[in-house]
């Protein structure tokens, strides 16, 4: 049985390699916000209040492009709706927590943290304080995101644009799913999602990001039926 501290540290260690892509991306996000002409305090407030990577850039780009606040807010909601799926998966492991703890832990659920903690949870179901792993991944992400976006806001885009560091984001997610390429059913689900995301890329409010997972999960349900 691992202690709370050991689980928290394990969570920190499991997510820290992803900071290689998260930190440059955060710096870019902060710098873009200021370049688009928004007040630095507002750009930073988003990292604290929304705490949602790409959705923050989309929000500012929409507003600066003349979209209404309603459209910008709706887009953020739709982009981040994928968290509903993460929550549905995590709820099994967080069931025993008190309502207040569930409310608090929800704030730090992020893509990479969900991915790494979910992998750990599957292998260590019997641990009593499992949620400390999720707190470890989430808090590491939170601290790095705040520091990275703040540096981008204060120092500007000191990461040279020619390096194309935005490309590190798809790479970080490749690292997350690559081992599942061993399983044919997962490969089919991934390709379905990926192709759908390209097909629906121009759908309004960036909704491709939730439409394609839903299509892919339908395909997963069909595959499960065929397997029986």
């Amino acid at each position, binding site marked *: 049985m691992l202690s709370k501290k050991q689980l928290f540290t394990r969570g920190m260690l499991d997510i820290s390699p992803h900071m290689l892509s998260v930190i440059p991306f955060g710096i870019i996000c902060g710098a873009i916000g200021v370049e688009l002409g928004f007040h630095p305090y507002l750009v930073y407030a988003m990292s604290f209040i*929304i705490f949602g990577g790409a959705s923050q850039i989309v929000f500012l780009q929409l507003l600066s492009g003349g979209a209404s606040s309603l459209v910008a807010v709706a887009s953020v909601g739709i982009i981040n709706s994928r968290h*509903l799926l993460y929550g549905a998966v995590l709820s099994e492991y967080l069931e025993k927590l008190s309502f207040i703890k569930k*409310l608090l832990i929800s704030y730090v659920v992020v893509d990479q943290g969900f991915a790494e903690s979910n992998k750990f949870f599957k292998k260590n179901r019997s641990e009593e304080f499992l949620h400390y792993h999720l707190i470890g991944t989430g808090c590491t992400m939170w601290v790095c995101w705040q520091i990275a976006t703040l540096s981008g806001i204060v120092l500007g885009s000191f990461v040279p644009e020619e*390096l194309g560091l935005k490309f590190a984001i798809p*790479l*970080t*997610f490749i690292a997350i799913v690559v081992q599942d390429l061993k399983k044919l059913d*997962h490969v089919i689900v991934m390709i379905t999602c*990926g192709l759908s995301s*390209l097909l629906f890329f121009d759908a309004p409010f960036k909704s491709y990001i939730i439409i394609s997972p839903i299509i892919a999960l339908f395909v997963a349900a069909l595959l499960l039926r065929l397997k029986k």
Partner: protein
Amino acid sequence: MTLTAIIFAGILTYFTRMTMIALISRDMLGNKIKAVLEYVPSAVFPAIIFPGIFINDFGTIIDMNDPKIFGALVAVIVGYFSKNIIATISAGLVSYWFLIFVVFN
């Protein structure tokens, strides 16, 4: 004005994180749904990966000889065999930089 919008966007985002964790009990989801949820990582992350590779800054599909495709392939191969996140990201970036700075320059 913008701050109000940010706060609304923040509340909405928090609800997407909190709803399934705090308001839905696991018993409300049947075994079939639980089995499908096993596929969530494979069903969600390609929607971030594919556009990040195949769609450029102007929102159009890239050419088949774009260096990003090569970088992504290298990352997949290195990631598959190394099982190492840092190696995967670095291999993808370095091979991408090799193409844009050395080969296509």
